[in-house]
């Protein structure tokens, strides 16, 4: 059995940033990821990363306070303000750090990091590298991890988090390339396993963003927080739901309905297309629902007036995605878009240093919820979240000195491995006739249709009974086939159980929350209700089903006010 002082699960931005922080403190660290780190979903982030640098024309008066305020307001006041403060205070520093490590940001004429306007922000605050920001940052961190010779376990998928007596012992993992099952003992485990977009239909997320990390933490007894807050991105390509970054509107793109109107004037006339995501997404969905859309159910994102030069220079990826997926050149034709699932605001409950209820177990990045995004994340804030808190988690671990004292508990790990082994055997010898792909498709359909942008008590109840039905059918899966090596059938089937359980948590949380806040919009409770609902939803796994509780929101500087744009 291999062992490491610190094991990071997830090779995205959050995971790698944490690993670098641990390595820089001279500790033994390894990164495990079910896809090679550079294939992580962080590479798909296009638009940029926020920090109040004040480099852009018109951004001179920006400050961390303004950034924090925009974030809190964007979150519809559900974010924990102390945590938001930390993020915006450290933002500039981590960006400079990334730049010093080689991140190839786009530049202003003076040679500074270029910044562009983004939705819900008062100043142009989003640092960018064309429309490939996430990808170029990812490669930068991957390069830096090579520099530090950080041990990688690529294409190793964690199947279980081992916790005993409130103490994290390690993980049980499956090696895709060989099919071998192994346990890894560690002093500390950090989950940086990303979001759960694939639970939803019409998701912009990578195929591997099933959020299995959240599931393993949940089953190990760690509470999940604010799971009902699911972000829908206003603009995804019709059909494939590939993202069209907010930067397209940041650079000046128009949203047009079938009457040729810039309909955002009816929703947020002051900000127009640059309203916060939840509002723009609802606006588009409203246009679609009320029939002011084109035949394929899309509205148009029109970039033509930006001119070829600007599009090629600032939005090359958007253009190539349109060409490859729709055969449309945005230089010549408007892009048909529709809203799609995009981001998980909720996640593993943790504090500002990523610490969770379980000693030695940390969470960071999109899978975590230290609560900076509250009910609605602002564009450009989640990349920032990954690197700021990645660094903090790494530093916290090395400070805390965990990982040195605890000696590997081989017996407990072997027992856990035995459990996983038994469960896999069950999958392979299933006697039912339910098709995992079919269940997954029905799940995705249910979530997007019944627990999507607009929610309603009665419909949510339907969603819940459908999810319960699916959970029942999951117990009657057909046998998984083939050998252990690179067996997608097995990994997808094993993921599916967790996806169903989290869908249940999302739907139940949404049903309980009788108000509209941020991305959570109830047709039957259209107003925000700070008296009853200014609190975080917490959910813990129990044998009889999810156990809900609530936790107060940290309000420090900014009293909740009506969110007006």
């Amino acid at each position: 059995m291999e062992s490491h002082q610190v094991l990071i699960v997830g090779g995205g931005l959050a995971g790698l940033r944490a690993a670098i922080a641990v390595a820089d403190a001279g500790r033994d660290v390894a990164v495990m990821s079910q896809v090679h780190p550079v294939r992580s979903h962080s590479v798909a982030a296009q638009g940029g990363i926020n920090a109040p640098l004040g480099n852009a024309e018109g951004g001179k008066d920006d400050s961390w306070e303004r950034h924090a305020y925009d974030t809190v307001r964007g979150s519809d006041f559900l974010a924990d303000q102390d945590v938001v403060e930390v993020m915006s205070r450290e933002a500039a520093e981590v960006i400079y750090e990334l730049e010093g490590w080689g991140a190839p940001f786009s530049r202003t004429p003076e040679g500074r990091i270029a910044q562009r306007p983004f939705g819900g922000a008062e100043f142009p605050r989003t640092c960018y590298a064309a429309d490939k920001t996430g990808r170029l940052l990812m490669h930068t961190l991957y390069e830096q991890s090579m520099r530090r010779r950080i041990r990688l376990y690529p294409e190793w998928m964690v199947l279980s988090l081992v916790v005993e007596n409130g103490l994290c012992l390690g993980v049980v993992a499956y090696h895709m390339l060989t099919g071998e099952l192994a346990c890894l003992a560690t002093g500390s485990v950090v989950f940086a396993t990303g979001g759960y977009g694939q639970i939803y239909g019409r998701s912009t997320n990578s195929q591997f963003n099933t959020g299995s990390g959240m599931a393993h933490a949940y089953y190990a007894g760690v509470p999940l927080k604010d799971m009902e807050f699911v972000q829908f991105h206003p603009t995804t390509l019709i059909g494939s739901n590939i993202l069209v970054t907010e930067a397209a509107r940041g650079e000046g793109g128009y949203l047009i309905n079938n009457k040729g109107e810039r309909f955002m004037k009816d929703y947020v006339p002051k900000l127009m297309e640059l309203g916060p995501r939840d509002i723009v997404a609802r606006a588009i969905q409203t246009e679609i629902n009320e029939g002011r859309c084109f035949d394929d159910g899309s509205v148009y994102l029109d970039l033509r007036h930006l001119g070829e030069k600007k599009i090629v220079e600032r939005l090359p990826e958007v253009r190539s995605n349109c060409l490859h997926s729709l055969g449309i050149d945005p230089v010549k034709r408007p892009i048909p878009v529709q809203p799609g699932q995009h981001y998980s605001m909720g996640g593993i409950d943790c504090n500002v240093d990523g610490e969770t209820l379980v000693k030695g177990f940390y969470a960071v990045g999109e899978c975590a919820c230290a609560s900076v995004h509250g009910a609605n994340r602002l564009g450009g804030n989640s990349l920032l979240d990954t690197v700021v808190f990645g660094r903090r988690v790494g530093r916290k671990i090395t400070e805390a000195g965990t990982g040195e004292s605890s000696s590997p508990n081989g017996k407990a790990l072997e027992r856990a491995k035995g459990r996983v082994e038994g469960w896999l055997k069950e999958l392979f010898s299933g006697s039912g006739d339910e098709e995992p792909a079919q269940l997954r498709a029905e799940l995705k359909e249910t979530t997007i249709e019944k627990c999507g942008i607009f929610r309603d008590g009665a419909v949510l109840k339907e969603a819940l009974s459908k999810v319960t039905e699916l959970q029942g059918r999951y117990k009657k899966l057909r046998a998984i086939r083939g050998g252990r090596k690179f067996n997608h059938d097995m990994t997808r089937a094993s993921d599916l159980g967790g996806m169903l359980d989290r869908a249940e948590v999302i739907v139940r949380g949404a049903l309980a929350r009788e108000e509209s806040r941020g991305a959570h919009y109830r047709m039957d409770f259209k107003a925000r209700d700070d008296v009853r609902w200014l609190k975080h939803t917490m959910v813990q796994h129990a044998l009889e089903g999810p156990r809900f509780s609530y936790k107060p929101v940290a309000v420090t500087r900014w009293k909740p006010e009506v969110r007006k744009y």
Partner: protein
Amino acid sequence: MVIEKKVILEVFRFDPEVDKGPRYDSFTIDVKKGMTVLEGLLHILDVQDHSLALRFACREGVCGSCAMFINGSYRLACQTQLEALKGRRVWVGPLPHMPVIKDLVVDMRPFFEKVGLVMPWLEALSAPSGKEHLQSPQQRSIINEAVDCILCGICHSSCPMTWTKKDYLGPAALTKAYRFVADSRDVAAANRLALVNSEDGVWRCRTVFNCAEACPKNINPTDAIESLRRKLVSGRRKSR
């Protein structure tokens, strides 16, 4: 959705530990408008043959997972429209010249190893201002192309020099080296140049251009390699 046509996907199947030899399996699929080869393969995985092994993730051409050999050309499966391919038969194989692990999945470890050999990271002095290093848009534009690399391994697999000599660093690693040598902020160009200055480094490229033809990101590794060579030749003259 409108079904545009039916396509027979012939997919390479091989598990070296089990099968005696490779074979191609045929699957008939209904092509909907906009359907990519990756979507076709995922359909096979979901519905027709659950044991198919392939790599995929982002499905939008940025993660570099789905590099394959489609109808005899190097492609990203997620960026290849089935409709756009001629004929009713489309055949799909793994990246040639890389050891097959299973079906369309090849062993990328040697490739990543090569990339790791060229000091593929920035070595910079800390910025004097305590802020960012200044880099003009012109300086940035020099590395525009090279930073675009998604490490998909296509160029490496396409270069005849890697076919016969496993030690050749290959176009991707060399492009990575160039990306840092050419970065105005970097201070370790000399060390990096020393690493690529070998028979298995820049000097092995025979300007075959397979790499530049195949790269899905339209990167031209040949250009990067030739630039490295010029730097080595002129650097040599300077050091005399």
